């Protein structure tokens, strides 16, 4: 079972993703956070997380910055950057920060679940 944490400032998107991904087989939503800071706090509290789904655009720590921190502190956690930006520069930036996958927000839930399982 893949333990997943969703970090998304937009509440509609965060709740929608939690609701739909929780229904996917082999994925367990262990935590969600509306900002990078809260996410780091929850990680520090000892929650076991395998994969983190992080929004690119957030107030405070951006998705890329949070990725860098997470990969520095807990390198075993796989990070998937979720964004609406499709340009390669964004993708390269995310990969450089340590993200395992770069996913556009137009992807179907099934495809997203498949990537979570594969990373």
């Amino acid at each position, binding site marked *: 079972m893949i333990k997943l944490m969703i970090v998304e400032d937009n509440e509609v998107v965060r709740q929608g993703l939690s609701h739909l991904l929780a229904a996917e087989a082999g994925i367990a939503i262990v935590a969600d956070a509306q900002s990078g800071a809260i996410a780091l706090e929850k990680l520090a509290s000892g929650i076991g997380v395998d994969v983190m789904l992080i929004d690119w655009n957030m*107030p405070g720590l951006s998705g890329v910055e949070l990725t860098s921190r997470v990969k520095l502190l807990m390198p075993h956690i796989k990070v998937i950057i979720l964004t609406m930006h499709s340009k390669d520069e964004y993708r390269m930036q995310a990969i450089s920060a340590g993200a395992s996958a770069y996913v556009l927000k137009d992807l179907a*839930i099934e495809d997203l679940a498949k990537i979570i399982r594969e990373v």
Partner: protein
Amino acid sequence: MADKKEYKEAGQSAWKERQAFLLRFSDTLRTYNNQHDIGKAAVEMLAKELVLDRCYCSMISLSKDQANILYQSGNSLIPPIPCTLSPANFPEPLMQSIDGPFLVNDTVADERLTAVDRECFAAISFRAVAACTIRRGKKDPVWSLVATQSVPRNWTAVDIMLLEEAAERLYGAIENARALTALAESEKKYRTLFNSIDECFCIIQMIFDENRKPVDYLVLEANRALYELTGLTDVIGKRMRELAPAHEQFWYDKYGEIALTGEPARFQHEADALNRWYDVYAFPMGKPQELKLAVLFKDITERKHAEKRQVFLLRLSDALRPLADPFSVQNTAMELLAKWLGVMNASYFEMEGDGDSFHVAGHFKDQAKDLPERMRLSDFSDSLVAAYQSGRTVAVNDTGITGEWVKSSEIYARIGVAAWAAVPLLKHGKLVAWIGVNSNKPRVWSEVDLQTLNDVAKRTWDALERTRAEQALRDAELKYRIQLENDVKKRTRELQESRDSLQTIFDERLKAEEERNKTYLLLQKSEETASLGSWEFNRFTGQLTWSDGMYRLFDLNNTTPVTPIIYLKYTVEKSLAKAEKVIQYIQNSDADFEETLEVNISGKIKVLRIKGTVVRNGQGDIERVLGVDQDISEMRGAEEKIKKMEQEQQLQIFRTSLSTLEEERHRISESLHNGIGQLLYGIKINMSSFRHGISEEEFNQNKAYINELLTQAIVETRRVSHELMPTTLEQFGLKSAIDDICRQLSGEIEFNCHISVQHNRLEKYMELAVYRTTQELMTNVVKHAKATACEVMIIIGTDQVKIVVSDNGRGMPQESEKADGIGLASIRSKIELLDGRLTIASEPGNGTHIEVIIPHQGLTQKPGR
């Protein structure tokens, strides 16, 4: 002298004879008074008595080597001796005669004689000589009696004794006669002098009483003048008291003092008894105990009277001089005259024009009756009138005695006039006035009195003439002064007008001059500060004149001569063609010109802008060309700098605009991405739940949720759209638009928005700027301040707009203030482009106060920004 005893022994009888001769000799000599008679008689008697060939006496002066033969007598055996002999020719006799009688029995045989002696004696035929000499002192022979023979003779002692005695007696007789003659001559001279001097001279002997008080004097001698002066006939041996009993004691005292003290004295004094004034010099004579005085004196009565008269006349002149009117002059003159003469009245009569009438012009009376005011000459006797008209002075000493001027004494007795005198005054031969004085007792009018009358008449007349002339002069002066004053006033007025006019002209000129100087200084200063110089080219003379500024521009000494060609010298190669054109313009152009040259001045490249203006004369010919050269190098540099700055500003505006645009795009992108995009993504995710096998309840829940999300998406789209173009602003104005922002942003933060409009609606771009600035500041508060309340105030003034946003949030960190914080840098740059300013006051924990001021005018001037 020879010893008489010896002689006696030689022959008593002979001596007796000789003695008888000597008695006879003396008796004879005594009969003569004259020395010459005595001398002649003496030598004759001696020659006869001693049977001499020649006897003579001579006066000797050794100092002159002269022996003058005074008297001689003898026969032809020895010819008469020359008048003068030289004693030096008879050295030996001279030597011997110094000590005593000189005797030579034979001049040829006597060995004592020198050859010279012999030769000289031979020359005058002397063979025997006996000389007896009278000496002064012991060695100085002065007189000699000489007996000579033409043959040798043995002189006996009796001969010598007789000769010596005779010499003594003769010398004495001659000297006595000479003294008597001298005395007689002296006496004669004294007498002559005594009687010839004008001054009176007398010798007196003082007589004192027992108390040594001088009481009288005896006249011992008196000269002719004294008799003449005093009229006395016999004074010698008379006492003065006897001669003049009333002679004042003063004279006795004064002479007594001189006699006692022996001190001579000179003095002037009046002898009242004699009515005379004397000038006296008295000195003691003879022995003091004789109490004799010589008195030399003269009568100075006339002089004294003349002096007194002169003093009176001076006093009269002094009294009349200050008087200004004729009446006072006449009265004063008459008063002084009457008092001086001691008469009862004095009148000044003045003739009138008809030559007959006369009136009393001035009068002074002392107990006298008044005279009629006007009288006529024709009423007086013809002789008196004739006397007056001929200028003759008339004086009557006693009116009681009838005569030429007094026909009847009774008339005078009635008016109390005992004596009178009148002095007429003629001018140019015409009787003009006369003075008359009356005495109430008979009086002898002296010359001085009449002369004084004459002088007073003249002086009074002169004073009258003077006062009349002065009066006329005063009248004329007054008239002239009035005329002069009028003339002066008129002239002064004219001069004042002229001066005012001149002053105005002068002031104007001065002002113009000052202006010119000011202009010149200003020009110099301007030339200096503006780096320019001016010049003038005279087309007629071809002379170019530079101002100091020009010399400064070309870095030349201001005495350097210049011509238009100078431009060629300094112009850089690429501007040479232009320089030639400038020269052409200066020398020949008939129109104004302007050219820019690049010149090399002392190795420095300057850009000169040259402007020239032609100046024409009255005939329309071009006379001069005036020009200005300006160093525009710096101006050019400045222009380029401004251009660069403008370009940089443009670039900045472009960057800011671009940045603003980018921000705007970013914001819109954010809004789309985070707002609408996320909502749409949320809808998409939720729509994934509509799968097969979904329960109806779940379907309905999801449907409702998606519906809500779609509504949110529509609202968000509207918001973004609204943000892109605030329609409220456009449609309802700034106030409504700001209220709208307040409403939209109020939630967690309570916004209190106030807007005060003191000015009509702003231009559209300005409204938009105010709106955007406020919106961004408020959005910043929402995003970063963590505040609970925020005051927003907008004041639209007449010349500026003020926006204040003040929150109670966490405040700004100091470094953020420096860096203008998040988003503030972009707001600040936009405000600065509008010439506005942004200030921040913030302390951590105490909120943030941001104030923005944007000038209104700047906006209207730069509407394009």
